[in-house]
């Protein structure tokens, strides 16, 4: 599996966010997207899953499941955690697992993987920012999808949780997945290549 982009450009709000971006990521590879604030890191990730229209250029996925679109083979971890405060931790995760088509909604293992298994019955309203982030990450573990798009994945996470996230990402890569992560700092992926946005301007 190989996700590649050639000469990608994006306009938002009448402004060029980025242009001429090319990259290729294969199975087992990770690419970190870096750049100053407003360089278009989030927009690039949103372009890939079709939430922002691609103004110019081409995005292709080779050796993927040809019956599914790129978005349907992708996990997107955005800035927002997509949690409902009035649902419990388990209900939130079970919903997303069901919505993304997990055949069996086994949520105990993903919750344990992010260290939230003891809080399963707590309403999500009572979670801290870092715990909300971890619950969001549990979604990626609960449903298997080959492409992970992570937008500032380690924000609000403490050191232990960052280590755990690094471990999950390494497992994902070892299983043949690929990762694109927009980030400002190191996220614990040795050997990840870097795509720098907005360097020319």
């Amino acid at each position, binding site marked *: 599996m190989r996700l590649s982009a050639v000469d990608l450009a994006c306009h938002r709000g009448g402004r060029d966010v980025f242009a001429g971006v090319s990259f290729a990521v294969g199975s087992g590879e990770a690419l970190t997207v870096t750049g100053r604030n407003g360089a278009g890191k989030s927009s690039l990730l*949103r372009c890939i*899953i*079709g*939430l*922002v*229209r691609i103004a110019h250029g081409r995005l292709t996925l080779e050796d993927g499941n040809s019956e*599914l679109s790129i*978005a*349907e083979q*992708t996990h*997107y971890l*955005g*800035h*927002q*955690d*997509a*949690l*409902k*405060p*009035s*649902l419990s931790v388990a*209900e939130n995760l079970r*919903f*997303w697992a*069901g*919505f*993304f*088509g997990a055949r069996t*909604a086994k949520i105990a293992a993903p919750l344990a993987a992010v260290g939230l298994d003891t809080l399963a019955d707590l309403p999500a309203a009572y979670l801290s920012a870092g715990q909300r982030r971890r619950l969001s990450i549990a979604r990626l573990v609960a449903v298997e999808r080959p492409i992970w798009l992570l937008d500032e994945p380690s924000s609000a996470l403490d050191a232990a949780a960052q280590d755990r996230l690094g471990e999950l990402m390494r497992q994902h890569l070892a299983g043949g997945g690929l990762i694109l992560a927009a980030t400002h700092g190191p996220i614990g992926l040795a050997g990840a290549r870097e795509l720098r946005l907005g360097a020319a301007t």
Partner: protein
Amino acid sequence: MSALAALLVRDMRLAVRVGGGALMGVLFFLVVVTLTPFALGPDLALLKRIGPAILWLAALLASLLALDRLFASDHEDGSLDLILMSRAPLELVVAVKGLAHWLTTGLPLIVAAPLIGLFLNLDPPAEAALMLTLLVGTPALTFIGLIGAAISVALRRGGLLLAVIVLPLTVPVLIFGVAAANAAVTGPVPFGTPFTILCALTLASLVVGPFAAAAALRQEME
């Protein structure tokens, strides 16, 4: 569990939890209808004549109440991004959200209607006819409302805009809903004529609503 079933269960669960819209709609309905006899005075003939119209108006406003949060809350917490990535067609996703909204706000109104019909001096046959018109008509209110909810999704105070967009579109449903209920109470028009048109309006909105709302959402998310 399929994506759509999961979404239906979640939306219904959210509606009945704290901060959800289910109880709010039916309480609003009860309050409006209960206040009417106090405002109009104990004129039983008058109440009987305008009773169906009041119940219909209250049902229309009550079903608007929870609509503005239908997509906006998913938009604010990022859920809508993930929902848009779904394998299920967006039109079906929107229709399922509409169904959940109707089951939690429309259906309770219909159950409550005969009880509060007593306040408006409606006799049992009239109440049965009224329930039937509400059962057929309220899905149209929800599915027309979906369009407004989708258009106002990214606005912070979208509720007012929603009412301005949606209320004019619901006028035909209101006219034929009340006409059918009145025909059953007082005549002289046969019940079937306006009722059939009401059915047609509902069927049309069930088709048009999800497509228009999905198109609006796609446009909005750009």
